[in-house]
């Protein structure tokens, strides 16, 4: 894998196969789906952050003209305290069900309580106001440290802390405690000449996809249930709905419509089982749409966190020990991404002595969901800030200290894995050599910061089938929803194998009845794993086509070779036929050729990124202006460089939003006071410069073309890089996210 390979399709920039559909308004997203006889559903949500449900009376709503059906948790099968495996780790089924429709308690403002299906969305909304719910309001717990106090109000009476395999006797809001240890941290700190320790706090942030959640369900009297929706994973929707409704998986068909962004937030189901229940109850198709406030209040954001990081280094700059304490808010039910946060913190460095403790803590906020490299951004904000401070104290260039301690092939991460060939050092070198890093930056209130990030990436299962057409094109059938150009990046991998242009592949993303199992579009796995499946399916086509050519020429298959889109006979006969011409002769040589590829690859190959940012701090207003931004990243092999750049730029800007503006702002009762795009301030193009990218290619040995997932890692460095730049500009270490004008002015002492 070390030598540069020559490719014909890989590394080029063809136009996306769904390009025209998406610029002409023809692409159909979940809310665009129409079907005759459609009813409209609306969800009633809790006005309280923490309350016991005393009673629900739906009689007034049921009597309202136009109302066709109402469901509550009583319509869901009673979830025993059993654990369901949904492909992404075990999930407690009761928690999963209670988050769909609250049974005994509501655990956050916006928690779904009941739903109405009616002949119009207005009637459904009106009817929701006629459902009488009696609550016994309880005090809410809204912050992770408060929730960990021994006398904190409890969300779950039966939740007991699992700590390193042992379960506690008394209930607690701390769902679990994990620990990774390597070497002897105390000894490591004793060897250090400088030790720095700080506390960090990060706010709750939302993925902020522009398309709200949606679902349309149809129930047939023969028991078949169909759900059209926007999702990151149609098969995952099928699994979750089957578990929640205790319904046979083979009777559920999920049709993935186009999806308007997800970033991890469209994996868990919310209204899909509700639409299904309403469809079953009314016998009619039911469409349920969320509005923006529902999305903020009723779907999983990514957690707020409290973090302590301690690192020590010798005068020469060698980091001798590192410790982290990570307490993450899981939201209403256990399951924060503290595990990934613990895996990723310190991962760019080879540190001999490491101790990481992670706590998963429930609070009265929506159950958190993944958001682009979940957990890693929170964690890196702490570690990358401390490393910057170490470099400053030791008078070492911040990129230099990263090079000195950077992880390489053969080094072991604190959570266990030994790195295969990785490209971290290369990203730091690329940043160091970039003209940005050499550019002058001495103006008053201007500052420069750097930070790195790691995301492990995942493999998981994918399936692809390829149907060969008579005209030399192929139809590629896949199960990965395309959120940002993966039709192209997957099709290109099949095209490379078969020696045909990317345009000769017609990719289709199909429903769960029409392709083999495929896990979610998430974990930066789609171009890697579904691309791998496309590669395997194309290899299968190639093998079958070789057999056809052999049959045509009446030679042994071993005598047929395939190169550059041509089959030729290598022994005896002077025969040659192009892929295209052979496609026209499939009928006479045995019938159609259908290739298939299924994978569950283990070698996802980690992704590293190093960012450089210049900022200007306005000491009067507290505003931080991003002046220049350069992101370097190891893509392994960039299948479609434009779309890799797009992933990096998008991730960076989400990271900038997280760093400077975005947070859920709660009042004392637990109501989010900024649940709109006006008040939850995501970056607009006014807030940004052009984002410069450098793609580094250190091929991943775990993929035939060397692909590493690229989607997630770019969100990790920005908060720390910007904090370090702010320090460089005004000499203040910011330790709370977001670094909003208010926080900055307070830190500077202006207010």
């Amino acid at each position: 894998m070390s030598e540069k390979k020559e490719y014909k399709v890989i590394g080029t920039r063809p136009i996306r196969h769904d390009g025209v559909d998406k610029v002409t308004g023809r692409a159909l997203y979940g809310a665009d789906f129409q079907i005759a006889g459609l009813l409209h559903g609306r969800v009633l949500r809790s006005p309280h952050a923490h309350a016991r449900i005393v009673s629900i009376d739906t009689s007034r709503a049921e009597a309202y003209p136009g109302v066709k059906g109402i469901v509550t948790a009583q319509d869901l099968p009673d979830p025993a305290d059993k654990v369901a495996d949904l492909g992404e780790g075990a999930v407690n089924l009761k928690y999963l069900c209670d988050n769909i429709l609250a049974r005994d308690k509501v655990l956050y403002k916006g928690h779904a309580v009941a739903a109405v299906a009616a002949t119009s969305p207005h009637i459904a909304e009106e009817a929701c106001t006629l459902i009488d719910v009696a609550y016994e309001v309880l005090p809410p717990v809204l912050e992770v440290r408060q929730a960990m106090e021994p006398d904190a109000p409890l969300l779950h009476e039966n939740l007991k802390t699992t700590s390193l395999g042992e379960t506690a006797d008394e209930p607690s809001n701390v769902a679990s405690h994990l620990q990774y240890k390597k070497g002897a941290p105390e000894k490591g700190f004793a060897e250090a000449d400088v030790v720095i320790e700080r506390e960090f706090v990060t706010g709750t942030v939302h993925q902020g996809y522009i398309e709200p959640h949606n679902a349309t369900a149809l129930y047939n009297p023969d028991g078949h249930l169909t759900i059209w929706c926007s999702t990151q994973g149609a098969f995952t929707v099928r699994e979750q709905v089957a578990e929640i409704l205790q319904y046979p998986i083979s009777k559920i068909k999920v049709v993935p419509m186009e999806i308007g962004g997800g970033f991890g937030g469209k994996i868990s189901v919310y209204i899909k089982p509700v639409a299904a229940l309403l469809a079953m109850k009314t016998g009619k198709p039911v469409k349920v749409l969320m509005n923006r406030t529902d999305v903020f209040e009723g779907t999983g954001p990514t957690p707020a966190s409290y973090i302590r990081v301690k690192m020590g280094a010798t005068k020469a700059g060698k980091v001798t020990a590192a410790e982290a304490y990570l307490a993450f808010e899981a939201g209403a039910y256990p399951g924060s991404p503290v595990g990934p946060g613990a895996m990723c913190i310190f991962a760019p460095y080879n540190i001999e002595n490491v101790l990481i403790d992670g706590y998963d803590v429930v609070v009265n906020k929506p159950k958190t969901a993944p958001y682009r490299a979940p957990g890693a951004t929170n964690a890196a904000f702490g570690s990358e800030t401390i490393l910057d401070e170490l470099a400053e104290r030791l008078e070492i260039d911040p990129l230099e200290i990263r090079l000195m301690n950077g992880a390489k092939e053969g080094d072991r991460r604190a959570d266990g894995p030994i790195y295969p060939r990785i490209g971290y050092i290369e990203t730091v070198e690329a940043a160091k050599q970039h003209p940005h890093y050499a550019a002058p930056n001495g103006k008053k209130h201007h500052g420069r910061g750097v930070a790195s990030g790691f995301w492990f990436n995942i493999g998981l299962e994918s399936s692809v089938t390829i149907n060969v057409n008579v005209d030399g094109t192929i139809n590629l059938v896949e199960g990965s929803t395309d959120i940002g150009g993966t039709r192209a990046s997957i099709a290109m991998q099949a095209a490379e194998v078969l020696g045909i242009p990317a345009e000769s592949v017609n990719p289709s993303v199909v429903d769960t009845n029409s392709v083999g199992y495929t896990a979610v579009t998430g974990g930066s796995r789609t171009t890697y794993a579904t691309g791998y499946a496309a590669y395997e399916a194309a290899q299968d086509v190639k093998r079958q086509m070789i057999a056809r050519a052999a049959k045509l020429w009446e030679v042994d298959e071993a005598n047929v070779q395939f190169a550059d889109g041509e089959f030729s006979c290598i022994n005896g006969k002077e025969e040659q036929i192009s892929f295209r011409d052979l496609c026209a002769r499939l009928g006479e040589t045995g019938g159609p050729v259908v290739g298939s590829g299924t994978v569950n690859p283990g070698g996802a190959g980690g992704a590293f990124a190093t960012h450089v940012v210049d900022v200007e701090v306005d000491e009067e207003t507290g505003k931080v202006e991003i002046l220049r931004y350069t992101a370097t990243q190891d893509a392994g092999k960039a299948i479609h460089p434009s779309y890799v750049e797009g992933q990096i730029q998008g991730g960076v800007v989400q990271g900038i939003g997280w760093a400077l503006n975005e947070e859920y702002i709660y009042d004392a009762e637990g109501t989010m006071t900024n649940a709109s795009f006006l008040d939850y301030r995501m970056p607009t193009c006014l807030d940004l410069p052009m984002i410069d990218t450098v793609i580094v290619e250190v091929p991943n040995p775990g993929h035939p073309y060397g692909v590493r997932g690229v989607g997630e890692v770019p969100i990790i460095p920005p908060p720390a890089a910007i904090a370090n730049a702010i320090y460089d500009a005004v000499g203040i270490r910011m330790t709370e996210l977001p670094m909003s004008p208010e926080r900055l002015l307070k830190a500077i002492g202006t207010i």
Partner: protein
Amino acid sequence: MAKHPVSLTVNGDEHDLLIEPRKTLLAVLRDTIGLTGTKEGCSTGDCGACTVIVEGKAVTSCMVLGVTAAGKEITTIEGLASDGALHPVQRAFIETGGYQCGFCTPGFIIAAKALLDENPARTEEEFRHALGGNICRCTGYTKILEAVMQAAEEIRTTA
């Protein structure tokens, strides 16, 4: 609720409709006429996904009642391509990779089109100001700006 007779011209075609006065122009376009290319992202005028052109001006159609658009000329994303050819802005978005999920794209393309109709000779900074009402969560805007500037260049040189 009583319905009102309203005539709208959408993408050059006249539509005689009976609509409830509470229905937004967005709902009329999507649900009554069936033009679902215009997207609903926030319903509060903050994200720009529902941008359409009314009498030459880009507006967020979720902030306009359908009945108030009576008699007006409206252009939606479905009306941009003509004679089977894409508008330069549409083509530029495809060529530069100016979208990822594509959900905010109709709004961006329509906003950019209105802008370029008015005056294609603008600086990057001016384009940033003019497109500040449209939110994209996927791209970080770099390739969107590149697309709009590429289209502006093409319109300027072919005008």
